[in-house]
C-alpha cells in the first residue's frame, strides 16, 4: 500500500514520496541514537502542566485587590436606547462603578485589523452601545464590583429604557437601516476572470442551485477572559488573557487608548481553544483596560457560557445562488455565484474578509476557465460574525462540491470521474487562480490533486466500499458515501521574526511573536529549532504571546503559525548555528567545515570525542568573555521569514453516513481525510489537528446552529441547545497525510494543517446523505438536522 493511514490505535504514518532522509539544507544530519526531531511524532512540550492541573487559563489568574466586571446587555435585538438607570446598582454594597456609553465617549469603535475602510468603518462596534442596541447581548453598561457575584446581582438592577425598532434576521431580505442613511449592506464583493457570458452561451448544460450554510462557530471550551492591570510604577498597562494576535491587538488597543505600544503589553496565558473566535478585540477587552487605569485597581472579566453563546463571534451563515456552465464531456466552463453573507449586527475586526475569502477560494482546485462571484455583505440583528476555523472554505467547499455533485448527476457522469476531469493537473503548477483574496494574489504553489484523489480512493478500497454500501442498501439500510475535494490556504504573510538565544547551560530560548491556542505550537517550533540547531527539542523553551518580549508578531491564525513562525525559526537557528560553529572552531582550533552540532554539543565530524557543550560556546560569546574577540556578543540571533504569497495545501474528505428514516437522524459511521501538508513537522500533531477539525465539521454539518426567532431572540444560548459533538457523535477519524507537494515558498517545504480537518466536512456529509437516502441533490442546507432530513424524506414520499 502506497499510502499509510492512521486508524484507531496507530501512530500516524506519513506517506513520504522518497526514501531520502527528510533533512533540510543546512541542518544537522540525523544522529544515530537521536533522530532528527523534524518530522517525528514526538510528545508535546505543552502537556505536563496541563495534565497536572497547573495550567494557567484566564480565569485562573487573579491579582490582589482586583475588581470584577459584569456586562449589562441588550435583551432585545434592535431598539433605540433612550436611557440607562444605574442608580439602584450603584447603591449596592460592593459596587464601585457603573459605566455607560457616556463614560467612554472618547474611545473609538473597535477598528478593523487591516486598517481603516471608508465603506466599513461606520458599521464598527462601540465598546458600549450608544443610541441603539443591535443584537441580543449588545453591551450597554459595565458594572464594576468587588466580587463577581455582587457584580452579577448589580447588573440585573441596571434598567434600560428601550424603544423597539424593526428587526432584520434574514440577510437575503430587503435591506434595512443600520443607522440613518446607512443601509444594511456596507459593501459588495466582486471577483472573477474569463468570459462568463461566452461560457454559458456555449455550454452543453447549465446547472443552478441555491445552497445555504448555517450559523455556527468555534465555541472554545474556555470562555473569553480579560484581566486589565495598570502598573503606575512603570506606567505600563497590561492585558492578561490575550490570544491569537497579541501584537496586532496591542497596536490597535494602543491607538484606541492613545498610548504608545511600548506602554501597553499583552500577555497570553493558556488558551482553552481559539478556532478563530478567541483573541479578537471585543468590547470587554477595552473596558477592563480603561477601568484598570481609571479605577486604579486590576479589573477581571470572565465571560460566562450564556454570554459566550450570544456575544462571541459567530460564523458561516451564507446563502449562495450558484450556476455552472458545463461542456458535453463534463468539463466545467464557468461558475457564476451570487451570495449573501450574514454578518450580524456590526462589522468586527475582520471586516469583510470571510466573505472575501469565500469568493476567492470558491473555485477550489478545479480548472474553471471562467468565474464570476458577487457577494452581498449584509448586516442583520444577530450576534456579529467573523472567522471560524477554515473561514470561507467550509462554506465554499459545500457550495462548490454540491454543485459538482449536481453536475455529475445531471450529466450522468460518476462524481469522482467528473472531478478528475476538472482538477488542475500537476504540470499546471504553479497555477495562478486569476483572482486575489485578502490582499493575496492566489497562486497555487504546488500540488498533485489527482494523485491525492487516487491515493484516497485506493486507501479506502473504493470499489469495495461502494459494493459494501450497495449491499447494505439492498438490505434496507439508508447508508451512503460522499466525497469532497478542496484546496486550503495557509501561511498568510507577509513576514514574521523570532529571536533565538542559547544560555550558558545550553538551554535554548525561542522568543516568537506567535501565539498558541492549544495546537502544539511550542512543540513544533521547538522541533524546527532543535532540528536546525542540533539540540534536543526538550531543551528548547518557546516564548509566545508576550508583547514585552518581542516587538512584532503574526500570532496564530489563518494557518500561519507553523509556516511563518516555523520558517523564521529555521532562519534564526541557522544563524545561531553559524555563530556557534564559528566560535567553537576558534576554541577547538579547527575549521568550521569539520564541525557539527549534535545533541547540544559541537563535535568534530567523524570524531567520537566529547566536543564542546553549546553552553560553553555561549559563555565564550558573553559580552565580557575575552575568547569572543571581535565577534558579536551573545549566542543569539534574530531570524526573519518573508513570503510574497500564501501556500496552498489540499485535501480530500470522504464520509460514510447512515440515516435513520424514522427519526431523520444522520450518523457518521466513518470519516476519512487525505491531506497533503507539504512536509509534516510532527505527524502526530498534524493528525490531531485534522481529527479535531473533522469533529467540528461534523458539528457544523449535523448538530450546531445558532438559530434565532423572528424577533432576533437567540435560541441556542446554553450548551443544551447549542449542540457540540460528543464522543458518541464522532467516529474514529482516519487520516492519510501525504508529502507529495512540499511548498517551494519556504525553506522547510511546509504548509498549514490547522484547517484541513474541517474544510470539506459539510460537503462530504451532504453528499453521503444524498447517497444514503437515494435522493441526489436533496441536501441544500447545513446543518442537516433531523427535522430537515425528515422533511426531505417526506417530500420524496409525498
Amino acid at each position, binding site marked *: 500500500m502506497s499510502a499509510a493511514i492512521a486508524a484507531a490505535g496507530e501512530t500516524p504514518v506519513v506517506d513520504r514520496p522518497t526514501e531520502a532522509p527528510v533533512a533540510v539544507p543546512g541542518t544537522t544530519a540525523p544522529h544515530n541514537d537521536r533522530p532528527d526531531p523534524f518530522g517525528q511524532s514526538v510528545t508535546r512540550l505543552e502537556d505536563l502542566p496541563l495534565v497536572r492541573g497547573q495550567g494557567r487559563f484566564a480565569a485562573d489568574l487573579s491579582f490582589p485587590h482586583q475588581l470584577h466586571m459584569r456586562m449589562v446587555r441588550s435583551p432585545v435585538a434592535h431598539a433605540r436606547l433612550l436611557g440607562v438607570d444605574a442608580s439602584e446598582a450603584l447603591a449596592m454594597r460592593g459596587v464601585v462603578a457603573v459605566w455607560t456609553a457616556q463614560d467612554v465617549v472618547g474611545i473609538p469603535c473597535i477598528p478593523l485589523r487591516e486598517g481603516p475602510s471608508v465603506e466599513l468603518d461606520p458599521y464598527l462596534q462601540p465598546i458600549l452601545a450608544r443610541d441603539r442596541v443591535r443584537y441580543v447581548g449588545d453591551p450597554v453598561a459595565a458594572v464594576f464590583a468587588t466580587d463577581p457575584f455582587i457584580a452579577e446581582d448589580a447588573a440585573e438592577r441596571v434598567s434600560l429604557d428601550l424603544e423597539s425598532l424593526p428587526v432584520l434576521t434574514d440577510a437575503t431580505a430587503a435591506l434595512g437601516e443600520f443607522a440613518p442613511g446607512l443601509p444594511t449592506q456596507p459593501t459588495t464583493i466582486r471577483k472573477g476572470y474569463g468570459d462568463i457570458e461566452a461560457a454559458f452561451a456555449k455550454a452543453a448544460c447549465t446547472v443552478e442551485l441555491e445552497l445555504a450554510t448555517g450559523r455556527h462557530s468555534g465555541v472554545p471550551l474556555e470562555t473569553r477572559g480579560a484581566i486589565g492591570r495598570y502598573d503606575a510604577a512603570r506606567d505600563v498597562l497590561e492585558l492578561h488573557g490575550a490570544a491569537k494576535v497579541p501584537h496586532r491587538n496591542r497596536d490597535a488597543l494602543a491607538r484606541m487608548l492613545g498610548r504608545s505600544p511600548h506602554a501597553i503589553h499583552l500577555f497570553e496565558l493558556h488558551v482553552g481553544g481559539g478556532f478563530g473566535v478567541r483573541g479578537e478585540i471585543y468590547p470587554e477587552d477595552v473596558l477592563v483596560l480603561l477601568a484598570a487605569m481609571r479605577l486604579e485597581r486590576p479589573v477581571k472579566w470572565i465571560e460566562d457560557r450564556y454570554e459566550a453563546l450570544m456575544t462571541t463571534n459567530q460564523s458561516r451563515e451564507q446563502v449562495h445562488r450558484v450556476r455552472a456552465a458545463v461542456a458535453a464531456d463534463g468539463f466545467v466552463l464557468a461558475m457564476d455565484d451570487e451570495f449573501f453573507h450574514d454578518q450580524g449586527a456590526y462589522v468586527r475586526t475582520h471586516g469583510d474578509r470571510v466573505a472575501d475569502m469565500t469568493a476567492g477560494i470558491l473555485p477550489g482546485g478545479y480548472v474553471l476557465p471562467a468565474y464570476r462571484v458577487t457577494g452581498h455583505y449584509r448586516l442583520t440583528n444577530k450576534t456579529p460574525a467573523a472567522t471560524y476555523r477554515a473561514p470561507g472554505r467550509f462554506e465554499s467547499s459545500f457550495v462548490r462540491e454540491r454543485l459538482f455533485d449536481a453536475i455529475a448527476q445531471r450529466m450522468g457522469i460518476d462524481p469522482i470521474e467528473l472531478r478528475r476531469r476538472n482538477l488542475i493537473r500537476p504540470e499546471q503548477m504553479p497555477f495562478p487562480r486569476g483572482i486575489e483574496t485578502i490582499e493575496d494574489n492566489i497562486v497555487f504553489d504546488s500540488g498533485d490533486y489527482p494523485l491525492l484523489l487516487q491515493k484516497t480512493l485506493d486507501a479506502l478500497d473504493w470499489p469495495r466500499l461502494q459494493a459494501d454500501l450497495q449491499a447494505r442498501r439492498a438490505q434496507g439500510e439508508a447508508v451512503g458515501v460522499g466525497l469532497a475535494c478542496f484546496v486550503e490556504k495557509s501561511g498568510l504573510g507577509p513576514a514574521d521574526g523570532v529571536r533565538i538565544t542559547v544560555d550558558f547551560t545550553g538551554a535554548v530560548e525561542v522568543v516568537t511573536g506567535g501565539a498558541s491556542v492549544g495546537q502544539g505550537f511550542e512543540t513544533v517550533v521547538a522541533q524546527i529549532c532543535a532540528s536546525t540547531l542540533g539540540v534536543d527539542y526538550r531543551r528548547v523553551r518557546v516564548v509566545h504571546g508576550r508583547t514585552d518580549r518581542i516587538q512584532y508578531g503574526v500570532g496564530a491564525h489563518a494557518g500561519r503559525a507553523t509556516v511563518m513562525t516555523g520558517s523564521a525559526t529555521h532562519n534564526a537557528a541557522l544563524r545561531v548555528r553559524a555563530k556557534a560553529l564559528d566560535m567553537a572552531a576558534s576554541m577547538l582550533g579547527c575549521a568550521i567545515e569539520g564541525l557539527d552540532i549534535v545533541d547540544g554539543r559541537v563535535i568534530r565530524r567523524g570524531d567520537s570525542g566529547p566536543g564542546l557543550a553549546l553552553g560553553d560556546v555561549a559563555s565564550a560569546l558573553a559580552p565580557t568573555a575575552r575568547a569572543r574577540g571581535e565577534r558579536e556578543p551573545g549566542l543569539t540571533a534574530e531570524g526573519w521569514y518573508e513570503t510574497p504569497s500564501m501556500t496552498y495545501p489540499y485535501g480530500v474528505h470522504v464520509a460514510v453516513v447512515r440515516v435513520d428514516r424514522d427519526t431523520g*437522524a444522520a450518523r457518521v459511521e466513518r470519516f476519512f481525510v487525505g491531506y497533503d501538508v507539504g512536509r509534516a513537522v510532527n505527524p502526530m500533531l498534524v493528525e490531531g489537528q485534522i481529527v479535531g477539525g473533522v469533529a467540528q465539521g461534523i458539528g457544523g454539518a449535523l448538530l450546531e446552529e445558532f438559530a434565532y426567532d423572528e424577533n432576533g431572540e437567540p*435560541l441556542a444560548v446554553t450548551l443544551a441547545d447549542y449542540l457540540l459533538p*460528543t464522543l458518541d457523535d464522532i467516529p474514529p477519524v482516519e487520516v492519510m497525510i501525504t508529502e507529495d507537494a512540499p511548498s517551494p515558498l519556504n525553506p522547510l517545504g511546509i504548509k498549514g494543517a490547522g484547517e484541513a480537518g474541517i474544510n470539506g466536512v459539510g460537503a462530504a456529509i451532504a453528499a453521503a446523505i444524498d447517497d444514503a437516502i437515494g435522493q441526489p441533490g436533496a441536501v441544500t442546507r447545513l446543518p442537516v438536522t433531523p427535522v430537515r432530513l*425528515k422533511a426531505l424524506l417526506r417530500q420524496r414520499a409525498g
Partner: protein
Amino acid sequence: MRSVAFQYHAPRSLDEALAILAEVAPEDGRIIAGGQSLVPTMAFRFVRPGHLVDINRIAGLDRLSEQPVVASVPAPDAAPGTELVIGALVRHAAFHRPVVAGPLGRLLTEVAGHIAHYPIRMRGTFCGSLAHADPASEWCLVASTLDARLVLRSVRGERIVRADDFFTGVMSTAIEPDEMLVEARITLPSAGARMGFDEFSRRRGDFALAMALVSFDLVDGRIHSPRVGVSGVEDRPCRIAQAEALLEGCVPAIDVFQAAARAAAAAVDPLEQPQLPAIYRRELVESSVRRALERAWV
C-alpha cells in the same frame, strides 16, 4: 451565571426538614436532593429560591425496597401484589443494575441508561426528576405509564397522589409548597409482562424529543391490559388510550404495532416549540411507540 443568594438548611431528619420547609415555603423555599436540574436553572436565574432545604444528610431516604401494595385513598382498589418503593434519595445510578427481579428491574435499567450522562446519574435522584416534572424526563414517563403512587408529606400530614393527578403541566406538579415527595411506589408487573422503551434525542444523553414506554401482558398469546405512554411531546407524560384500545386482545404483530403507533401519533397534541414542527413530533411518536412495542415483544 451565578445563583441569587439563598439560605441553606441541612436538616438531619425528615421531620426537621418538613418543619423547615413549612417555615420557608412562603419565601420560595425548596427541597434540593441531587440538584442536577435545579442548580442549572438557578445558575441561569430562571428560579430564585430564597431557601434550599438539603435532604442529602437525612438517613433512610435512599430506601429502595419491595413491599406489599398499600391500598390508599387514590387507589383503594389496588390489586394485591408487591410494589417497588423508591425513596427520595435514590439516585439514577442505583438503577444501573436491576433493582428488582423481573421485567420492571430490566426496564428501569434500560431507562436509566438514557438519563443524561454518567456523572449526572451519580447524583440526580428518581424522585427529584418527578418533582422537577420536565416533560422530557424519562422517570416521569415511567411513573405516568406504570401508574406510580407518589407519597407527599408535610407537617400537615401525608397524602398519596396518583401519577395522573401528580403531573399538572410543564415543570408543574401537585406538590404543595410545604410538601416533599418522600417516595414513589410502583406496582411490580407480572413476571411475564412485556415492557419496552424507546427514546429519540439529538445526542446521547440529551433531553428527549419524544419517547415511549409500553407494557402488556400476554394471555393466550394475545395482548392484555396494554399501557402505552408517551412523553417529551406534550406538557406532561400521557397514556394513549386509543393505542391501548387497538392493542387490547390482538396477537402481537408488526402491523398491529404500526397501527397502535399511528394512533398514538394522531392522538398527541405536541407542544408548540420553535424549530420542532408538530408533524415531526408526531412522526417521532409513531416511531418511538412502534419501536417500544417491538422491543417489548422481542
